[in-house]
């Protein structure tokens, strides 16, 4: 379904700010699986997601989605196969346009956009019915600018929009990180519901070990731009949040040890 081969990306190459964000990431994701990606800040987990979405073109490596080589495709072209929800709840919707308009725009994701009406009179009922499935009473606010809604409401709508036409791949980029705990819970439940109902292949980046341990059927742990651990199948079922936290602590200690050792060596020999 999704194949990543040796992805590499360096930002600000050749400057003092050079960041090697991806250092050869390879990953195979099967049709219908729900993968969570965790990692420390700067581990490259969001970069990985953006590489798949096409926010930038990778320096090396190959990306295949549904057996199509999309490595060189621009972002908007990949959108025909990929649905996305961003970390910032304001990123996924056009604030001055109405709820109905936003949804209707999403209903044509990846399709050509001609001179047909965006909101034909008949279409509105369909939009309203699907918004009603969110159980957030948003169906009564179809003609309000979406910018007047709360972050949680907008994120729920973004999720609905990303999956309005069934995407081959759903990308979730820490999509609950900027929400209050109650809204975050609501979005997590909604995500589970939508993903399982539509059997969506999903790649979700999260900072929450709890989410990683409870959601999905595979966990990919990243560090320093490469995959550190990959829990799938039976192994995945035994992973608990505490295990993930412990693993991260180990990494941190190793790194501190590295630094301390380097310091010691420097003192001793330089």
């Amino acid at each position: 379904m999704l194949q990543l081969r040796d992805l590499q990306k360096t930002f600000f190459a050749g400057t003092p700010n050079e960041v090697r964000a991806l250092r050869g990431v390879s990953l195979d994701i099967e049709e219908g699986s729900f993968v969570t990606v965790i990692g420390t800040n700067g581990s490259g987990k969001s970069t990985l997601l953006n590489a798949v979405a096409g926010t930038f073109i990778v320096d090396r490596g190959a990306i295949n989605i549904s057996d199509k080589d999309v490595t060189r495709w621009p972002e908007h072209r990949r959108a025909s196969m990929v649905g996305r929800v961003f970390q910032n709840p304001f990123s996924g919707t056009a604030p001055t346009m109405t709820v109905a308009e936003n949804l209707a725009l999403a209903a044509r994701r990846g399709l050509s956009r001609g001179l047909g009406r965006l909101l034909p009179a008949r279409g509105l009922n369909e939009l309203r019915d699907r918004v009603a499935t969110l159980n957030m009473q948003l169906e009564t606010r179809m003609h309000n600018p979406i910018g007047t809604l709360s972050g949680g409401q907008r994120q729920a709508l973004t999720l609905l929009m990303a999956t309005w036409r069934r995407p081959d791949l759903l990308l979730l980029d820490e999509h609950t990180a900027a929400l209050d705990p109650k809204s975050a819970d609501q979005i997590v439940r909604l995500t589970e519901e939508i993903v399982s109902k539509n059997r969506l292949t999903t790649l979700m980046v999260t900072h929450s070990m709890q989410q990683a341990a409870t959601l999905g059927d595979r966990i990919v742990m990243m560090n320093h731009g490469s995959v550190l651990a990959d829990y799938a199948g039976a192994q995945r079922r035994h992973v608990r949040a505490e295990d993930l936290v412990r693993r991260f602590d180990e990494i941190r200690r190793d790194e501190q040890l590295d630094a301390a050792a380097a310091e010691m060596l420097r003192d001793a020999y330089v």
Partner: protein
Amino acid sequence: MTLLLSAWTIGLILSLLALGVYISYRVFKFADITADGSITFGAAVAASMLTRGMHPVIACVAAFFAGCVAGLCTGVLHTRFKINQLLSGILVMTALYSINLHVMGQSNLPLLSVTTITTYAQNLGRWMAGHDSATLLGWPVSARDFGSLILIAAVVVVIAFIAWLFFNTNLGSAMRASGDNEQMIRALGVSVENMIVLGLCISNGLVAFAGALLAQYQGFADVQMGIGMIVWGLASVIIGRALIGSDSVGAALIGTILGSVLFRLIIAVALRWGLNPNDLKLVTAIFVFGALVLPMMMQKARRHAAAS
């Protein structure tokens, strides 16, 4: 009365310019200074065609497409060659100055002896009034002025309606969304770059169309006539926004047209009261400065008041 009538007419003609600026400035937040060149370009193309005896309607349509090409250039410079917005516009505007001179063959092209839109307007006015002069609210006005106002108003209404329809299509909505939230519409499969190019095409097409009408109404095309027109358009758009504080497309379009007419009326009155015409552009620029800065300062003052 004639003064008032002509202020209305010019305000309506320039409302097409303002609609163009609405697309670049309000929809895309793109301060497109190409408008200064493309309004003259439209006037030049129309004028040179008219002096060669072509039909005024064809001349106006040709002016529209000429403007589209100018917008296309700016759009391509910005999106494909990654040149800064303002600079892309400045480059095309500067290039257009020479092109306009070539198109006209001279720096000023009079249109008083050829058949133009105003010839039709005069006939329309005569037909409506019955003879060469009409009375409007008790004031005598010439059939030409009266007819021009009616004709131009009709043209503006039709174009605004088409614009409204367009902005409610799939394509037009994608264009609005491109300006509203680039990241979102890209994730929904729209090339923001293409939208900007298309938007600037339409925008400058409208501006050039306004130029063609203006040249015919005032009876000449002049290579200098475009100077400061972008600021004029901005003023109209800003007044329109203040008049109708809504972001819906219909309201914004109507607001922009009203803004243009109102601004022209204010200027006419100011000139009447003794404003030196040489100061016109200075006053316009100061006005736009004020309109841009005041809301920000008011917000600050309000926050200050709320804090204390």
